[in-house]
Structure formats: C-alpha cells, structure tokens
C-alpha cells in the first residue's frame, strides 16, 4: 500500500488504455514509414533492370542522348520506338525540362502573391479579418487539381488564345494600377484614408480590382488597334516568330500557381506570425513604419521559414499531375518560350503507364521517372522540414532570452 494509485482499478484501466493508444499510434507511424520505404524499394527494384548491361541495352547516357530524327541533334521522347527496340530516341530530357519549366512558372506566379498575402495578413490585417481570411485561403488547397486543370485547359487557355490582347492588358495593368492606388491612397484626405483603412484593404480593394480588370478587358481592343494593327497575336508572330498555343506553359504556371499559393501562404504566414511579437512592437515603438518593420525585422527572422514554404511549394509543383496534364498540351518540347506547350514527367506517367507492357523498357523508364519525382519531392520536403525545425528552435531560444 506504498502507492495507493497503482492499486486503484480506475487508474489501472486508464493506464492500460493509455498504453494501447500509444501502441496504436506507434504502429500507425511505423506503418506509414514502412509504406514510404516499400514504395521506394518497389520503384528501385523495378528500375534497376534497366541498367543491367546487355539486358535492355540501356545506359544512363542513352537517356540523355539526342539523335535527332531529321539530322540535327534534338532530344525527343518517342516511347513507341522502345517497343521496336530503338532505345536511343526515348530521352527523358524533354520531360525533365517540361517538369522544371512548369514548376518555375508556377513559382513565379505563386511566390509574389503568396508572400504578399502572408505579409499583409500577418502585419496589416485586423485580427478579426485575418481569422476569417486565413482559413478561406487555406480552403483553396482543398480545391481538386482536376478542377483547376479543367478550368485552365478548357476555359482559360482557349480564351487567352483568342483574346491575347485582353489577357496581356490585364496582366500589365493590374500591377501598375495597384501601385498607383497605393500612391494615391496616401494623398487622400485623412478621414477617407481612415475609412478605407489598409487593415481592411482586402474588402474595399477587391471591387476596385474587379472594375480594373473589366476596364482592362474593355480597353484592350482600343490599344490593340492603335499599336498592333488590330491583331496582337499576328503581330507577335510576325515580329518575334512566336505562336500562341491554347495550352501553354503560361497557362500551366497560372493554374498551378493557384494550386501552390495556399500551401506557401499558410507556411509563410505561420513563419511571420511566429516572429516574437516583442521584436516587431519594439521596432514600431522606436518609430519604424510597418514596411520597415517587415523588411528589416520580421523578414530576416522569418526567412528560413519562408524559404521552407517555397520549397514545399516547389515540391508540390514538380509532382502535380492533373493540372499539367490538362493544361500543358503534353508536347515534349524543349523550348524556353512560355507560349509553347510542355510535357512533364508526372503527366507522362499518367498518360502512358496504363498502356505500357509491365516489365518492358517503356514501363521501367516511366517508373524511373516516378522514382526521380519521388526522390525530388522527398528531398524538398525533408529539407524544408529541417529548416523549419531549426527555426522553431531559434525562436524558443530567443523567447527564453527575453
């Protein structure tokens, strides 16, 4: 009877339940880990026979070789040639290029928007508005990528192709108008300024932006007829030799950018909000403006967190399948032109794997692509997680100091 609690039946049953829960959670964790490892091992086992000398006549260098069909050296992805025993013309290079191109365009779209939104919501927004805004933006992540891909590939792409001038005019006018609005805001009389406060800019700016978009679309035919003889597309083609495809890298970047924004926003916002309040308040108490506080105090501290947010976004962009599949045109080109189509590793796997004979060279090549994607996203996520962990540790220490 030295320890009265250990004989209490209620306590004992609670302890048993606790142990059971721990066991289940551990088993779940180990299960997930084992699954990930099993997938990697499966891919490895399926891919390794590719490189056995003599088996398929495949070597690493053959994947990057570029014997053109029409004389000049050119990387081409011709998987149907594999079934005829010609290995040399199935180069993974265009697919890799397409994957990177799509991811880069997506990040170019997503990073400024997501980071801007994160900075605004963590620094300017009133807490009430922010509490509503953040979940809404994060809800965007729940949007199925098929839907985004469908809209981009079947609605937006053809529209941009037909109304190039309108699209360009929106893209050019919007940032310009934003800067003008920001400059104009300071010159407004103080009561109006207070009424249209920056803290709730998200509410009153939105209708303004919608009007601006409408104006840009309405004005487009005007300047198109002034400067480009009424047809911008024709002009672009004559002047630069560029041909606008309905499904191109820009469209993919736009759609995938929207898919990536919520992830980057959420992590970057967390990183900025995690910066100890006293630092920002101290800076503002000493007379720093909010912009100065952001750029001189908060950004440097939150930088690793923002970096990891971008890396998670990059990982998602590289592995994203449906959007690229539906909006990219899937032509395995190796051009840097944003108006051409592209083809990514993930969409090649999606299109071709169901029809590739299991165990064949084509099948193994596609699994090699899958392995490459797996390793890349794994690396990105691990790196991002490490950086975040380091950051969290640093905050804890800095909080301990003060």
């Amino acid at each position, binding site marked *: 009877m030295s320890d009265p609690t250990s004989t209490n039946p209620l306590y004992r049953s609670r302890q048993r339940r606790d142990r059971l829960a721990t066991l289940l959670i551990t088993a779940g964790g180990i299960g997930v880990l084992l699954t990930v490892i099993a997938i990697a091992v499966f891919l490895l086992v399926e891919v390794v026979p590719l490189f056995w000398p003599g088996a398929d006549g495949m070597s690493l260098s053959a994947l990057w070789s570029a014997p053109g069909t029409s004389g000049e050296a050119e990387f081409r992805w011709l998987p149907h040639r594999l079934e005829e025993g010609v290995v040399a013309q199935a180069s993974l290079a265009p697919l890799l290029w397409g994957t990177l191109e799509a991811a880069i365009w997506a990040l170019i779209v997503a990073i400024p928007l997501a980071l801007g939104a994160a900075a605004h919501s963590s620094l300017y927004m009133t807490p009430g508005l922010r509490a509503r805004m953040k979940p809404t933006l994060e809800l965007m992540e729940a949007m199925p990528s098929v839907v985004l891909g469908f809209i981009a590939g079947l609605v937006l792409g*053809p529209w941009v192709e037909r109304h190039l001038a309108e699209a360009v005019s929106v893209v050019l006018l919007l940032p310009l108008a934003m800067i003008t609005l920001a400059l104009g805001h300071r010159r407004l009389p103080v009561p109006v300024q207070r009424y249209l406060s920056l803290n709730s800019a998200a509410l009153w700016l939105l209708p303004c932006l919608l009007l601006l978009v409408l104006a840009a679309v309405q004005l487009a035919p005007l300047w198109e007829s002034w400067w480009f003889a009424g047809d911008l597309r024709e002009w672009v083609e004559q002047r630069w030799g560029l041909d606008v495809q309905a499904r191109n890298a820009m469209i993919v970047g736009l759609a995938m950018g929207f898919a990536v924004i919520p992830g980057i926003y959420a992590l970057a916002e967390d990183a900025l909000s995690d910066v100890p309040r006293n630092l920002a308040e101290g800076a503002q108490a000493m007379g720093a403006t909010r912009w100065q506080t952001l750029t001189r105090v908060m950004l440097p501290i939150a930088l690793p967190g923002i970096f990891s947010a971008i890396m998670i976004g990059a990982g998602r962009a590289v592995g994203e399948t449906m959007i690229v599949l539906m909006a990219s045109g*899937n032509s395995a080109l190796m051009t840097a032109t944003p108006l051409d189509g592209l083809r990514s590793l993930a969409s090649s796997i999606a*299109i071709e794997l169901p029809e590739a004979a299991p165990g064949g060279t084509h099948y193994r090549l596609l699994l090699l692509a899958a392995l490459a994607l797996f390793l890349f996203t794994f690396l990105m996520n691990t790196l991002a997680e490490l950086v975040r962990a380091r950051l969290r540790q640093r905050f804890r220490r800095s909080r301990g100091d003060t």
Partner: protein
Amino acid sequence: MSSVSHFAATSRRIVMLLWLGWVAWLPLPATAHDVAGALNAVGSDTMAELMLRWGEQFEEQRPGVRLQLQVAGSASAPPALIAGTTLLGPMSRPMQDDEKAAFAARHGYAVTPVVVGKDALVVVVNRHNPLERLNRQQLDAIFSDTLACGAEESIDHWQQLGLDDPQGSIHLYGRNAVSGTHGLFRRRALCDGEFKVSVTVSAGSAAVVAAVGDDPRGIGYVGLNHLNADVREVAIADGQRDVRPERQALRDGDYPLVRDLLIYVNRPPETPLPEVERAFLDMVLSPSGQRVVKELGFVALSPSALMAQRRALGLPALAREER
C-alpha cells in the same frame, strides 16, 4: 516441374468444381438448345462499348448467359488468350508476330482472327475552316517532320495550303504515343515517320475533337465515331479523286486510314467452338450484330466479308432474306 503440373492440375480441378457449382446454381435453361454460363472476353477499350452492346443483345437472346468483359486495352488480350483465361480477345489492332508466336508455342496451334467491323480515322479541322482536301504528301508534311511520304518541305502555315482564312501557323492535335490511334496514323498517314514534337497530345479522342472545335487554326485526327458538329472532316485526295471516309470507300479499302476491329479466338483446329462462344460470334457476324457496329459509329462489314468470316469459323451461311 512435376509439382508445377500437379499444382496446375489441382487448380484446374478447383476451377472445374467452381464452374460446376456456378452452372448448378443457374436457373435451368428454358429450352434444350439454349446455352447457359458465362462468356469471358478480355481486351480492347476502343471496342468496350461495342462488346457491351453485343453482350446485352446476346443476353436478351439467351437468358442466363452473362458476358464478363475486361477492358484494359488491346495489349491485355494476348496474355489472357495465351494463359487460357479467356477464349475471346477483342483487339483494335492486329496481333504482333511475337504475340502470335507465344500463343502458338503455348497451345500448339495458331490463334484465329475474326474481323468483326472496321474503324476509320478521320482528319478533322475546325468547322469554320474551309479546307476541303489534303493529299497524302500534304498530310504527312503537316503532321511529321520526317517527310517519309515524299513531300518536299514541311507545312507549318495555313497559307502553304492556299488558305487565307485561318491565318498563321497550323496547330496540331493528336493522341498519346502508346494509343492504337496514334500508331495507326503514324504507320499509315506518316508512312512510318515521326510526328512533329509540337503536336498537342491528349489522352482521349474526345479531347482532340474538343480542342480542334475550339481552335480555328487546329487540325487533328480521331476515330470516325468521335465526330461532332464542331469539327469538319477533311477528304484524303488519292490522285485526282477525293476519298471521304464513307461506307463504300471504307468497305472497298480505298480510304487509307482504316483499321480492322478483331476478336481473336482460341480455337483448336478441327474442333467446334464451345456452344456459348459459337453462339456469340454467330450473333456478332449477323445483320443484327452488324447493326450495333453501325450504331456506334464504326463501319460494318460488307455482306461478302461477312460471309467470308462466317465460312472461316464454320458458321452456317445466312439465309438470303437475312443479308
């Protein structure tokens, strides 16, 4: 080795028992010559709807028979036929030599091809595009950069075809490299050449039609049964004559972009087919079966081709009024 054959024998016995159980469970056939049981077919997804419709029709004729269809693509038919898991393998392309050889090696006799209909590829342009015809060289020059059909130079702009309405460059739409449609077009229209890299690739024929219907500068190729009002078909010029993918031209073999739709049958020589399979093929190769082919937008066999197929299978000749 003996253990393997022992295992095979055991498993065959188990399958037999299961089959007997299945048959016993079925309601008794109404009349003596009705067939009962399950009909298996493994193969082409192009022909999936066709097989399903035939299956429905067959089930109406012979209550108690069920068609079990697996459609994983034409490539899935040969393995299933070789392994003996099915007697019928619908395929939208002819079997390759190595597939035939593997079948013969396993069973000791050749696989029997049955042509059950035809599918044609058509070249389509946007409905506003006035293009009437293309000859074989132009077609190749538009879609390929190998120019294997003998064209002088690649055609990249609509002006090169003498058109000034859709201006600018030609936008190409096609299918993914492992589809039968892609393979057929590459062999027949590009003379075994290679597509341009700039072809926009879709996973399905319907997507190609939708894209061309949306793009005034577009041109693409699809199966005949996918045509709709947004696109126009283009005639293939053969010498002085335009060949359109119409019934007569397809049946006579004038139209170049045609493929046979086949059902490969595992049938030992000198042995009649099992009753169910025989009855099914009899129905497929009958006027009512061929009507289904037409309804789904494929091309039915000509009466003489139909007779030839029936004779090859040892089916009775059709009565005169049935033809």
